[in-house]
């Protein structure tokens, strides 16, 4: 968890600097969280209503899901209201909690002052050299996502060694390695070692794929 990393101004939709007149979407990309929460709540609601209840215990199996549904609907709505009222991503300044913990609380407990805040910023300079359209680097994330999806698809036909080496190569490449042949070697070595240590050594069952079929 990179706690000290702080986020520059503005949310993922558009950098304010490059866009002097922010549109409605600016800083409101967190609506995706609201959507996920609503989707989850609706899924639970449908599942609860259509549940084929067995037995006749007093608070039945539908009781707790109903409570969870209420919590989800409530929290999603409140979050939506909060995003509408204050569209900025709340975590745009340097602080020790980084979303996981209340920074205010940690500040009070630790008697933190300006010195500690400065400690976070006197690492490398945090001002980006250029600005991007989105906060998230979707190209890299997309490449990685494609890598893991491809891995799951080819795992059974190709076997552990080949597909794990492929996954290793794709992730290393996406994260900025520029030595494709060397990476392929490292990937093959890594996947072979894990196959030996965990497959042969600890007896985990890893698919051998078509190569195993030939041997």
């Amino acid at each position, binding site marked *: 968890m990179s706690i000290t990393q702080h986020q520059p101004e503005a949310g993922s939709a558009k950098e304010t600097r490059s866009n002097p007149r922010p549109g409605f979407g600016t800083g409101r990309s967190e609506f995706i969280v609201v959507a996920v929460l609503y989707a989850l709540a609706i899924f639970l609601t449908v599942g609860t209503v259509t549940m084929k209840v067995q037995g006749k215990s007093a608070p039945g199996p539908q009781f707790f899901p109903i409570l*969870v549904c209420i919590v989800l609907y409530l929290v999603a709505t409140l979050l939506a209201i909060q995003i509408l009222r204050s569209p900025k991503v709340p975590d745009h300044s340097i602080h020790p909690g980084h979303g996981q*913990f209340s920074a205010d609380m940690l500040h009070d*407990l630790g008697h933190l002052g300006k010195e500690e805040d400065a400690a976070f910023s006197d690492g*490398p300079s945090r001002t980006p050299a250029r600005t991007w359209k989105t906060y998230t680097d979707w190209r890299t994330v997309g490449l990685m996502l494609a890598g893991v999806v491809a891995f799951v698809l080819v795992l059974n036909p190709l076997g552990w060694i080949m597909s794990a080496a492929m996954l290793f190569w794709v*992730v290393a490449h996406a*994260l900025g390695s520029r030595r494709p042949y060397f990476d392929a070697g490292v990937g093959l070595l890594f996947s072979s070692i894990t196959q030996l240590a965990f497959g042969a050594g600890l007896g985990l069952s890893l698919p051998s794929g078509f190569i195993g079929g030939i041997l």
Partner: protein
Amino acid sequence: MEQLELLMGGFANALTPINLLWVLIGAVLGTAVGVLPGLGSAMAVALLLPVTFSLEPTAAFIMFAGIYFGGLFGDSTSGILLNTPGNSSAMASTFEGHRMAKSGQAAKALATCAIGAFIGGLIATTLVVFFAPTLVKMATVFGPAEYFALAVFAFLAISAVVSESVIRGIAALGIGLALALVGIDGPSGTSRFTLGMPQLFDGISVIVITVGLLALGEVFHIASRIHRDPAATQIEAKGRARLNLADFRKALPAWLRGTAFGAPFGLIPAGGAEVPTFLAYGTEKQLAKRRNDPEFGTTGSIRGLAAPEAAANATAGTAMGALLALGLPTSATAAIMLAAFQQYGMQPGPLLFERSGDLVWALLASLFIGLVILVMINMPFASVWAKLLSIPKHYLYAGITVFSMLGVYAVSSAILDLWLLIAIGLIGFMMRRYNIPLAPVLIAVILGPMAETELRRALAVSEGDLGILVGSPITVTLYAVLAAALVLSAIQHLRHRRANRQAVLVP
């Protein structure tokens, strides 16, 4: 002194050559994962958990003892040398630790950490040995209503009291509770939210959820920023990590103060060591001000590093006690440990000491052994461990991605688990992106089923009368303490919001 006898029995079980080897392997792996930047002890436990499943329970838990403390020993290394703590519990030790490193005392700082972690862990584990039976006795008077109150306490403490945003904390809690609902409902046998898929009848594996949220989610998050954020620069740790007598004398009171802060917090479900480490740091800061210590805040004070470090490990030590005796995970890491027990068909809590006493005492004994081994492999080789920081990031995260796939596939050889892993990894990425805390999800996934069972049991006994939930002094006390904590944190949030508003008005 029945405990001492039992502990000796535990040592006899744990001190076989093969078990010593497992502790050593666990300690080395735990430290290694802990040292790596961005990977904390929670991730160490989550990634290595599936690997231990092929071992027999005693060996697996002995190895776990090494991993558990090993991750904590390593956590502060990247904080001191890179100014990026491996875990949020190592944040408070980063302030003074990184200052010491910058003023050329990196080796000394690493040594202070290792000894601090050792002392904190040692005292806390000793406390657990002596007080675990008392906790067990306390827990035997707990009925369904008390256990439900305990679960509610843990849920709200972790999602509302200590979190940055109450709404986001509760949202995380809701996601966790929803994930825990999938599967066959135990009491009635009804299949819930399984979409008719037999693979989901057992529910979504906790391994899939932890590895997805902590490991894959982190890799996605790193990927989203790696080409944009500047890299941190590392400070070389020269020479051997050692302390001279004067430094030791200076640090000793701080280690003990830190332990005193940390030990009680292991029993409180407040998310782990963040609160006590910051408390310990704040105390040292105040003391340094009174003493006119010129080192504090400039070249780095050894005391300001020693106290939080001991506090972190003391919390981890007593958290183990709460986990074993009450079955209550007080931090994300402890929640994953609880999942490990469940994987072996054991339920931590009062009955564990009766049913698998041998294993519990062997585990406690191996915590001691693990601490000794850790201080032995950390003190002389601190600068060797620091070399791990120079592994190129792309290989590091590629390795983690492959390893999380391996771990999840190894649990049940199911492709469906891998799809779920990717989906939960994306949820983890989304949560990191929008600063939604992860710990409530893990606590909810682990404690959710227990909360549901106990609530339904309590309501079945009282025939639907909600009064039973507040019908005993224990439950009333728990809810009162929780309410007080919520009010206090609300006041604090409001006070800071007002201060911020004024700061904006008066530039």
